[in-house]
């Protein structure tokens, strides 16, 4: 771990000023991902800006009284157990509690969770010679290497890593809005545009611009909390990354699907949501045929590698399971 300067601003303006003026600076929130990467030598910040004194921990309705505004520094544990979340967005609570371990959730923040890097051994260990994300142009070690945990959707030959967040998959179906502050003032990024696909710039995991700070995550109201589930398939019962996960939220009126929102985790560089698939089952009866059709469309174009062939079938079955459970919930 390299020597570094440590600063702890007391307000957002100072934090933004520091990130703009200090070379190779990083914001430090819970540190659960940054410190791992730093100890491995993947990250080598020269200045660490500890943002723990900025507040930003409130969890309350949005200023207009509807929905929810979640401070970027709210801890994952606090968010998962918050009464407004448990009552109004239970799917978010379930996704949070499906992630990491209690110790990690106690430290990890909402903003940090959004910012966690894609998970891939060839990225995390600099002793591996090839990783386009860590060393652009060096190749992808996973493409012909060990790729059991890797992407089947939206990947490029440059990078086939997956985003490991559970929270983000739930946020995707909740149509979360990410509020950020930067040199140009405030802007709002829809969750669907926050994480990006690797394309030919795999080193960029998000569309957050340099010198921007996430301040909050806004959630619009959720009309139907009953028919919403988070399903995670993993190698052990707790503290394991998703092989595949599914967040599914249906609204059902008079026995038909009024709306469907479905996001997949563990299959792509970002939470995988396909609006065109969701429209397919609008107005139809929530049965196996409908869910099969959605799964087909969601997985259109999927491509697997040597060790992750199973994800093609597992993703399909997981989508069908999640939708079946969501539809059957009373």
């Amino acid at each position, binding site marked *: *771990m*390299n*020597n570094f300067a440590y600063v702890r601003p007391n307000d957002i303006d100072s934090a933004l000023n520091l990130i703009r003026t200090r070379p190779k600076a990083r914001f430090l929130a819970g540190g659960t991902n940054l410190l791992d990467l730093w100890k491995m*030598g993947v990250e080598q910040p020269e200045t660490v800006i500890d943002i723990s004194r900025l507040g930003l921990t409130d969890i309350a309705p949005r200023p207009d009284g509807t929905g929810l505004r979640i401070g970027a520094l709210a801890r994952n544990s606090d968010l998962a157990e918050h009464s407004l979340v448990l009552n109004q967005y239970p799917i978010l609570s379930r996704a949070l509690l499906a992630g990491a*371990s209690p110790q990690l959730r106690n430290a990890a923040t909402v903003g940090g969770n959004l910012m966690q890097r894609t998970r891939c*051994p*060839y990225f995390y*260990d600099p*002793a*591996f*010679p090839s990783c386009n994300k860590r060393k652009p142009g060096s190749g992808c*070690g996973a493409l*012909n*290497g*060990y790729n*059991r945990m890797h992407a089947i959707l939206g990947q490029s030959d440059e990078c086939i890593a997956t985003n490991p967040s559970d929270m983000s998959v739930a946020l995707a179906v909740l149509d979360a809005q990410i509020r950020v502050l930067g040199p140009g003032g405030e802007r709002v990024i829809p969750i669907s545009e926050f994480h990006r696909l690797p394309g030919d710039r795999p080193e960029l995991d998000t569309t957050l611009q340099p010198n921007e700070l996430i301040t909050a995550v806004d959630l619009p109201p959720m009309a139907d909390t009953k028919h919403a589930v988070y399903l995670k*398939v*993993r*190698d*052990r*019962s*707790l*503290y*394991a*990354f998703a*092989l595949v996960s599914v967040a599914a939220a249906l609204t059902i009126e008079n026995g038909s699907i009024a709306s469907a929102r479905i996001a997949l985790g563990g299959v792509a560089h970002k939470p995988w949501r396909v609006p065109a698939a969701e429209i397919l089952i609008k107005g139809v009866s929530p049965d196996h045929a409908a869910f099969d059709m959605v799964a087909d469309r969601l997985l259109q174009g999927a491509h697997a590698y040597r060790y992750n062939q*199973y*994800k093609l*079938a*597992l993703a399909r*079955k*997981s989508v*069908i*399971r999640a939708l079946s459970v969501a539809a059957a919930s009373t």
Partner: protein
Amino acid sequence: MAQSPAVLGTPRQRVDGKLTVTGTAVYASDFKVDGMAYGCLIQSTIASGTVVEIDQSEAEKAPGVIAILTRQNAPKLQALPEELTGNGEPGESRLPFQDDQVFFQGQHLGAVIAETFEQAREAAALVRVRYQPGELRTDLLGLADQAIEPRMWAGRTKLQDKRGDVDWVWANMPQVRLVDETYSTPIENHNPIEPGAALAVWDGTDHLMLHVSTRGVDLTQKVVAAAFGLPIENVRIVCPFIGGHFGSKGFSWSYFLVAVAAARIVNRPVRLVLSRPQMFDSMGQRARTIQTIGLAADENGKLAALKHSTLTHSSMIYQYTEPCGSLTRSVYSCPNVQINHRLVQLDFTTPCPMRAPGEAPGFFALESAMDELAVKLNIDPIEFRMRNYADKDEFDQRPWSSKHLKECYDRGAAKIGWSSRNPKPGSTKDPDGRLVGLGMATAVYPARQQPAAAKVILSKDGSIVVQSATHESGTGTYTMMTQFVADSLGVSMDRVRSELGDTQFPPAPVNGGSVLTASVGPAVVAACTALRDKLISLAVDGPSAALSGQAKTDIVITDGRISSAKDTSKSISFSDLLTNTGNQTLEAEGSAKPGDAYQKLAFFSFGAIFVEVKVDPDLGEVRVTRVVGVYDVGKVLNPLLARSQMLGGITFGIGMALMEGTIPDMATGRMVNANLAEYHVPVSTDVPPDFVVEFLDMPDTNMADNGARGLGEIGIVGAPAAIANAVYHATGKRIRDLPITPDKLV
């Protein structure tokens, strides 16, 4: 021997429990000395080739750096003698700094020594190593044609063996068969919670104190003394607590020799602690195994032929063979048996024993195959095993010292509700729609005693210290020694303090092979007997003795007093006796070694393990929901600690069955999941709440003194097969390649 109410055989809390749970137990990396510096390893990032240059120019300039140890400035190490590198003592026979060859990823090329650990780590990251890469050998199957057939494991177990004529039976007799089915297990790492750690403290240039996490203080002393050319008495190894090892600690691993060399060149004490990733390349692993089993039985289910072949790997610098077939000769009655092991040397780190070496992967294969043949024969799996029950050890035709395996089957079957099991795979679902399966397997593990010695010291205040150079790896050695002294000398446990893990104490074996209790217990008894004799002599024959005139055979020792059985008025406390005779302390040593019975009888522990699994029919997730293990391990000395051992062992088996595996990148030979986030060991929710462990508690009267056999390893044996068999019963899918992760069932 015990004349007070016995403490052996009763449940006792660990005497070191409070120290352990309050963080006050002192582990190797907790020791501190003045002037201590910190070391961090420099490791290879290729798996095969030659080091051309180690550029340390940047690292030297880094803050806090005291020195950089490489081959250039390392003290010349002496080659280890044959007794330390031969078949008997696995580990890396190749010492560090011998040449510029690289044999695996993470090989130790040197170390940075700095004022703080963080400085050492940062400087180590700045060292640039240039290599000439060599040809890479990572493909076990692809290189199988280059396999050798090693003769022995650990100098005592034949790896190529047969009885009868398997080939003739196979070729000529029509039978119900399981034809050469292949079972495989991945590389696995021990992953104790405490990493390897060493603090080397030189006194001058010829005396060394080494605090190191080792399960063999005496062996480590020999290795360090030999490597540094020191008289053995000049090297002291201290290790009062081990934070688990499962087979990994001990042996001649390079890192503690690097620490000793580092302390030498900087003339300061040096602490070197391995990181979690380094636990995957610096302290052994279980090698991958690819096993083939062939079974033939007549229509009544009597085995006629049994073939067990193992293909596995070792590093390029040591030939260690995972002995999967070693017990296949003994478990069942079968006239024709053939076992074979083939070994390929690959560019991976050196493997070593890991909890139940050989038996853990071997019984996964054998007990899965037995289940498969039982299905083919349409015979209940327990009944099939009973039809092939071995009434003696057919490997060398010796009678069992004591075997009650049938009772284990019966009790386990009753507890799990085996009789109501519908044998048809996929026939049972729970209310949530999950498939339910019941599976079982046999567990067997050798019982051994090894030579050991102990000393007891009685003080004038009546307290007793017992010492032996044995080890506490979290399993209860301190408690066990205390119990033995309490019973042998008729005192309460709180009057006794155990000391261990120091080469200054009487010698004891390496903590492995489930031998500790059966070896050290009798040594403690022998020392206590010697002390007792001294006490009686003092009391009866001494100048101012209170019991003079009494016959020694009439003396009883109880509650810290020496008394006459004939005349109850004649009695003296230990303390008064020592005071009256002018002794501050009274000491005695004793030792024990295996007797003649070990030549004549076959000593094994036995068990039967039953599990219930629930499997998601679509998503392939397997959860173990019930476990029943019934074991015949001889006399149980402390049911509380014995149960803990079995819970740990079986949980180890759950990990092996469902999630563990170290995965190499074939293009570089580097492990891709060398961390605890991606190398999965069971977490609390993987352990079923309904977890029954029972012991028959039948003393093995052929074992020394106490009739106890070991139980450190038998818990893992059989557990993976029982789970795989239960998964088959639940789903109809036979998974022969561990671990059984969801991808294999989707």
